[in-house]
């Protein structure tokens, strides 16, 4: 697979790791970066053809082999640069797949509408991770399943948690929420409704997206951020 990565701005580390990842998987990677220092650093560190140039300049894209490329991934720091790079790749060089990073989450829909195949918003992804993950300090781990409608999370009951000391069935946990497993001092317990949780228990909790917050509040007392 022939892959062109477009850099520019503060995304050099992303470019570096992606270039390394794709070339390890046998891809033929070409990086186009407008910054001389970044281009030099990349050329020394990755198994890729690195070209000093602007990813939205048709001549530079041609030089990077856009005519034969299978994918172009635009990772520049400024959204308009990524849009134009992808559009030129499609229109002029017929690159079959274009992907772009957007910084303004609103641009995700805009880029789709303007014909970019795959758009990822780093701000949105990080924002989701932060709000789902660290909003509750007692959550050690969280996995969204079923397209994010169900959450499987690992929760540690903090001191003073309202969920400790009373049988599970009396806590008033919302429908569709289940404490599936309790890990207590290294032992695994599958709790029933008459079992009570204890402070420092590690719970594996399954919730629906709509009752996730309520369940956490009942168990840990944490209202989130």
């Amino acid at each position, binding site marked *: 697979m022939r892959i062109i990565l477009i850099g520019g701005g503060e995304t050099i580390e992303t470019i570096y790791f992606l270039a390394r990842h794709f070339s390890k998987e046998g891809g033929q990677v070409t990086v186009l970066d407008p910054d001389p220092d970044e281009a030099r650093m990349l050329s020394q560190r990755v198994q890729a053809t690195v070209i000093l140039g602007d990813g939205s*300049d048709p001549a530079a894209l041609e030089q990077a082999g856009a005519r034969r490329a299978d994918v172009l991934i635009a990772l520049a720091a*400024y959204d308009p640069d990524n*849009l134009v790079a992808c*559009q*030129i790749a499609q229109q002029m060089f017929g690159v079959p797949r274009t992907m772009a990073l957007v910084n303004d989450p*609103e641009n995700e829909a805009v880029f789709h509408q303007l014909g970019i195949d795959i758009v990822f918003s780093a701000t949105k992804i990080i924002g989701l991770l932060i709000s789902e993950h660290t909003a509750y300090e007692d959550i050690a781990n969280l996995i969204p399943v079923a397209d994010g409608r169900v959450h499987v999370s690992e929760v540690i009951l903090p001191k003073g948690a309202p969920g400790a000391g009373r049988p599970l069935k009396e806590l008033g946990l919302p429908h569709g929420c289940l404490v599936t497993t309790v890990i207590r001092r290294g032992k695994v317990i599958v709790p029933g409704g008459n079992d009570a949780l204890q402070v420092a228990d590690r719970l594996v909790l399954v919730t629906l997206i709509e009752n996730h917050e309520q369940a956490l509040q009942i168990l840990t007392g944490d209202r989130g951020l």
Partner: protein
Amino acid sequence: MVVIDPNQEAFNNLSVEFSGFTITGDAAELDVLRKAQIERADCLLAVSRHDNINLMVAQVARQVFGVSKVIAQVHDPAREAIFQRFGVDTICPTNMVAEAFLIAAVNKDQGGQA
């Protein structure tokens, strides 16, 4: 008339008779365009120094907000050609200046012959 510029000092260049509104911000942000009430605009001219911003703003104005008359300034002739084919109305100052120089040079030649 609404003028959008990321640099507030740029508005000092507007003539004293300018009676429109100014908005400080990046026109490549939907929010900034909405603040300028783009939904109600009949015409948008994207004339920043950066081709990519102009090309993006022009397409957003046209396709997202349905502005009927949209023109983008594109300095790079190669880029201009692609987007013109792609249906974006563009003006390329580089080509215009080159043409003006060519005409001036030809006229001068002819003047010399006379």
